[in-house]
């Protein structure tokens, strides 16, 4: 939740200290504090054009020039992620991505890391549900060398067995550690209890202990061969570079990348049904000082035509500091340090949830307030309140376009969800068109109060009886092991 992008020309000699003539002090009228100064007309943020071309092998390249700081962000986005994991191999996309820089083009993991760091570059690899990505940030002067390393990692990984075993142990240990942290457990328990163990969204992208143990070099190579191909990827480059400079570099580094055979048919992601009825689950965390509460259900896909209306509605409900949930649970009641809500939009309908960590002895009271706010938002919203949240949603949008990393992330979103070129330039206007009836309609349509799933990770001995006494829904106690298997 911060602001701005810089244009001062760092890295160049630039030291103008234009000293201002001092205006005389004193002889001033006291300022009028009787009402807040009204902001002037909102300034417009103009984004530079995305320059698109394709390499000889068909790899699409998108360039956004940003010359303020001599650095470049380059993200190779592969349009397949954890949703392409086949049943029984949950975690394959994630582990494939993690293995890319553990040995590539005959270079060992440590040698690759040394070369990247020596350039002053940063290279990361990861997979979300919808995409896999190799992301590079490099000083502009080192772009050619850094792109070379990036291409080796993305195109010709070696998948050394001993590195796979090392990463496997690291990930299994991390799953063990997840049990320590109520917030982490909550982020595992909620989707599992909402989607179940079969649907891909019911398990985190990294997989489970048992699925991690089944993944061998063969599975990872198979995932790489099937999905990492030039006709299933976009190279996004943002920063101190021009298409003219980039094109020959990209052609040299990525031009020999060839697809093998036809594109695999995308696994259909099943639209998960909503829960049949309201359910409250308690996951025991003995002695916890707070309970992690999540309330929600199956949300919407990124392609929803209600994207903007839901964005405004969620900003009002739990997507800003002055949202209703934060105002209630933090500012009015002091039950929590903060309370939020969000729609996690993916190719298929990801989860919607409202959530907070609340002090243990106020768990039941806080749960009632979650239901009060979810109930209230399915009623007409006062016009002035809606205007305030529309303004916030629209006017703070520019702050999301601050750094090369953020800009590249926005372009990734366009690539992965095939969004139109004007999706960002048209955003502010689209927000301003939202009417009270739109917000009411989407709230009624998507926040099904009698289907809500609640997960509470907390000290069962203290919270179970008070939560049952709220009569907000049937209560089931779920062992930690059940949500993690």
């Amino acid at each position, binding site marked *: 939740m911060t602001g701005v992008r810089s244009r001062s020309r760092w890295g160049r000699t630039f030291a103008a200290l234009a000293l201002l003539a001092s205006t005389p002090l004193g002889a001033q009228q006291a300022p009028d504090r009787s009402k807040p100064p009204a902001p002037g007309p909102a300034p417009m943020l103009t984004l530079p054009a995305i320059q698109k071309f394709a390499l000889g092998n068909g790899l699409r390249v998108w360039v956004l020039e940003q010359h303020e700081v001599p650095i470049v962000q380059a993200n190779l986005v592969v349009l397949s992620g954890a949703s392409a994991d086949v049943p029984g191999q949950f975690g394959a996309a994630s582990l494939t991505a993690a293995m890319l820089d553990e040995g590539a083009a005959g270079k060992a993991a440590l040698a690759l890391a040394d070369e990247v760091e020596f350039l002053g*570059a940063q290279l990361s690899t990861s997979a979300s549900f919808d995409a896999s990505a190799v992301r590079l940030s490099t000083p502009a002067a080192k772009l050619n060398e850094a792109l070379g390393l990036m291409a080796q990692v993305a195109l010709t990984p070696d998948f050394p067995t001993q590195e796979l075993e*090392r990463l496997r142990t690291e990930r299994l240990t991390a799953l063990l550690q997840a049990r320590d942290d109520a917030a982490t457990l909550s982020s595992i328990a909620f989707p599992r209890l909402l989607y179940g163990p079969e649907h891909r969204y019911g398990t985190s992208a990294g997989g489970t202990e048992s699925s991690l143990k089944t993944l061998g070099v063969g599975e990872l190579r198979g995932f790489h061969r099937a999905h990492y191909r030039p006709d299933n990827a976009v190279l996004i480059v943002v920063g101190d570079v021009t298409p003219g400079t980039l094109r020959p570099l990209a052609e040299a580094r990525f031009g020999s990348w060839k697809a093998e055979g036809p594109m695999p048919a995308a696994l259909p992601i099943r639209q998960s049904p909503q829960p049949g009825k309201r359910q409250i689950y308690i996951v025991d965390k003995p002695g916890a000082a707070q309970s992690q509460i999540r309330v929600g259900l199956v949300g919407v896909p990124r392609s929803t035509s209600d994207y903007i209306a839901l964005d405004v509605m969620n900003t009002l409900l739990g997507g800003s500091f002055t949202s209703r949930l934060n105002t209630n649970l933090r500012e009015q009641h002091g039950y929590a340090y903060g309370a939020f809500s969000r729609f996690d939009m993916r190719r298929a309908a990801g989860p919607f949830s409202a959530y907070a960590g609340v002090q243990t002895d106020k768990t039941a009271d806080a749960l009632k307030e979650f239901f009060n706010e979810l109930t209230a938002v399915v009623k007409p919203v006062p016009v002035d309140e809606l205007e305030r949240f529309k303004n916030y949603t629209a006017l*703070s949008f520019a702050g999301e376009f601050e750094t090369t990393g953020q800009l590249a992330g926005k372009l990734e979103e366009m690539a992965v969800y095939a969004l139109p070129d004007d999706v960002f330039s048209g955003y502010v206007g689209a927000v301003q068109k939202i009417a009270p009836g739109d917000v009411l309609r989407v709230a009624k349509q998507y926040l099904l109060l009698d289907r809500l799933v609640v997960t509470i990770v907390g000290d069962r001995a203290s919270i179970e009886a008070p939560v049952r006494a709220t009569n907000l829904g049937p209560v089931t106690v779920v062992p930690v092991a059940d949500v993690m298997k």
Partner: protein
Amino acid sequence: MRSTIRALVAAAIVAVAAAPAGAQGPARLAVPYTEFTLANGLHVILHRDASVPIVTVNVWYHVGSGSEKPGRTGFAHLFEHLMFEGSKNVPEGSFDTWLEGAGANNNGSTTVDRTNYYIDGPSSALDLMLFLESDRMGYLLDTMTPARVDGQRDVVKNERRQSYENRPYGMAELELDAMLFPPGHPYSWSTIGSMEDLTAASHEDVQEFFRTYYAPNNASLVIGGDIDPVKTRAMVEKWFNEIPRGKPVMPVAPPAAMLTGVTKKSMTDRVQLPRLYLGWLTPGTYRPGDAALDVVSSLLAGGKNSRLYKRLVYDLQIAQDVSAYQQSQALGSVFMVVVTARPGKDLGEIRTIVDEEIDRLAGAPPEAREMERVRNQIEASFLRRAERVGGMYGKADLMNAYYTATGTPDYFEEDMARYRALDPADISSAVGTFLPRDRRVELTVMPEAKK
């Protein structure tokens, strides 16, 4: 939001480092600014950066948890929360609703040394931002009530539960302050404070703290972004000139803290894996040794080839993670090495290896490539920092930090030069001088016995 961020300070300083060595040799970093001081003592720094039509208003009050009275630990941070709750001409809740209604974000944070506040938003809202910032600087107490104190007391207690009590190893971090600094030293208690002291904080304490520390002569204001410097100066004078100067604030000046031996402690937590903390008292921000120890932290635990990571996590695989950092602070810094053991692995063996690697670095300078790798990383991270003008650790916040510590808002080049000037022998010398095995704290956290 409104968070204590003490643990993040070290990372911020590490990230502020040198410029890229281009073909023409190192470029000089510079950030243009103007500055002036109002008659009431408020120091103002203006930095124009017009790439995006956004401005940031960044205020530092030169008071942190180090100025708290006995029995009132956590008060500076609780007070920070109250600064958002309204002032004479701003009804409770309106600070945030007016700003969000104008498309602006805001936050604040408290460390041992200072409290900062920022507002980022469209340039068209600058007048509103300065009105709000000046109203709470001048007139916070006019509408302060015991009920407002109670409300934020509950929020801060939940912040403590969320960030420490309910977070794995969170209580260990609170313990380290008391182990490293002697009783009574301003850094010997945590910024979040104890529950007991948070309960004891009163409306009267709020009034006294405001009158003592929240005066324009104890603050500095940086305005950055798409501003017209002449108009902005006029706006600042309009809103801030009328705020009266306060009494001079005495600097916190405790006797230098020193460790004279090894302090050991072991505690249990509801965690799966044992963890080892080793801590030393090291030179304060910008003092000789401070930059060298930043580099040491990267040599030990930054990246796969760093010495401790490679040996403990990569080669031997007896640790799940390792980190090292120089937490730079005004009155004296802390250097920490933190290692989490793999299941069933012995912290004693891990400690022996950490000691071996520290001895090795003290005994022989790092290799040239190793040194340059770290320096190139530091230089590039400096560039990445230049991308943002607002928010926490954006350029405006850094200019306030530089001004506070050195009197020069554009200290970027000088800061970078500290790292450029280091040669491998300086690194060995810093390790030998500042990380002695016989003067440090050793804290171990063990998993609670299963019931």
